[in-house]
């Protein structure tokens, strides 16, 4: 990053290689919107270029880029439409060969994640998927480490409740459909 700061454009390509997929996944899991996630990744790297002079040597680059990524998303939602509701079509792709049950579980879990309040979802995404240690997440969101741990626990409890509700919902719907001779609606999508 120091090379980028001092004007070496090629090094930004190296940073892009290393970070664009993790940042893209940070956004897809938060927003469930692939196109928007691609746009926000571009915005992040543009901001790195614009703000490169504000990067302080000795500070961790990962924390800095996630701070930029969070700000870019906040700015986006501040000035544009509210978040679109999560649709099955946005469900993540599952590697071929996965059993159908696992795929369904993964989709339900993603739905449950998307139904959590934004702050809880963000914490889970940062700690679980981006694998940031609690200390780093605490600095990022501006609170204490113990607060992050408490919030993670609460987020998981709420995720459990939503997940159970969603698990019950398709079963109810299947029973209703069976009574009415309606074929059950497919969850997810083919890629």
């Amino acid at each position, binding site marked *: 990053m120091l090379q980028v700061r001092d004007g*070496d454009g090629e090094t930004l390509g190296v940073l892009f290689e290393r970070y*664009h997929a993790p940042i893209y996944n940070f956004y897809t899991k938060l927003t469930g919107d692939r196109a928007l996630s691609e746009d926000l990744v571009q915005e992040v790297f543009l901001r790195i270029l614009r703000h490169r002079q504000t990067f302080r040597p000795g500070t961790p680059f990962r924390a800095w880029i996630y701070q930029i990524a969070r700000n870019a998303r906040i700015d986006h939602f501040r000035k544009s439409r509210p978040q679109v509701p999560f649709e099955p079509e946005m469900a993540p792709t599952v590697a071929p060969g996965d059993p159908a049950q696992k795929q369904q579980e993964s989709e339900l879990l993603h739905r449950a994640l998307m139904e959590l309040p934004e702050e809880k979802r963000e914490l889970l995404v940062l700690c*679980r*998927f981006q694998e940031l240690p609690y200390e780093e997440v605490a600095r990022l969101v501006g609170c204490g480490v113990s607060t992050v741990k408490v919030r993670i626990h609460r987020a998981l409890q709420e995720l459990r409740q939503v997940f159970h509700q969603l698990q019950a919902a398709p079963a109810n719907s299947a029973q209703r459909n069976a009574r009415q001779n309606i074929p059950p609606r497919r969850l997810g999508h083919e890629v």
Partner: protein
Amino acid sequence: MKCEEIAGLLPDYLQEGLSAEQKKTVERHLESCVECSEVAGLWKKLALIPDEQPSAAGRQRFEAMLQAYQTGRGDEGLTRRAPDKGASIWSVFQWLRSPVGAVAWSIALVALGAYLGLQLGNAKTNSQELAAMHTELTNMRQIVALSMLQQQSASQRLEGVTWTRREGQLDPQVLSALMHTLRHDQSVDVRLAALDALSRHAGQPQVKKTVVDALQEQQSPLVQVALIDQLVEWSDAEAAPRIEKLRQSPNLNPTVRQRADWAISKLN
């Protein structure tokens, strides 16, 4: 141990941050408590949601953005990538296929045809006619820029801004459109490009005034930092009070505030 006590240990257990003894305590509890065991199980199950690969188009956009940025900053900023001959021919070909490219080569062909016609038909072509033709071409380029600045698509407006950079002197109408773009365009990228384009016309008093006024209007920290940088680059001491006013805004992004401090110290 009760669930409340385990709750304090569970997050560290999930990130494998417990001692062996604490880990055993948690595991013993999980064996007997369904609720805590499900919470811990969900953490593991979250791994079922797989990571996705971003599309190849993202990389192309990034490269185009980097190139556009480097072109915009000229030689003051980043070093260019080593030229790749194949890629550069391909990118020229791609550009010629784009609507802007089509307009450009159409203008070039008309100009070439007119020039050859004049050369062949009238040996007495005088410099006045050539100058008139040059003016005509300049006007056409500015009309293209003006119309592209009003397009729906942000990328086309960006192209429009790029067109304005081809002219040393801008028509007042184009200059006014650029200033309007800087203040009101929806896209941050387009506003930033407009600022870069306007930075070449610091001699025009209304340009400096627009940049200073934009400082109070813009909400994007990215644009605010770029505006501050530009005013420092122009060494516009009169802008210092306006930057100070911005610095005192209650909800200002900390990075922008830091940049404003730096700018004020530079300008005073």
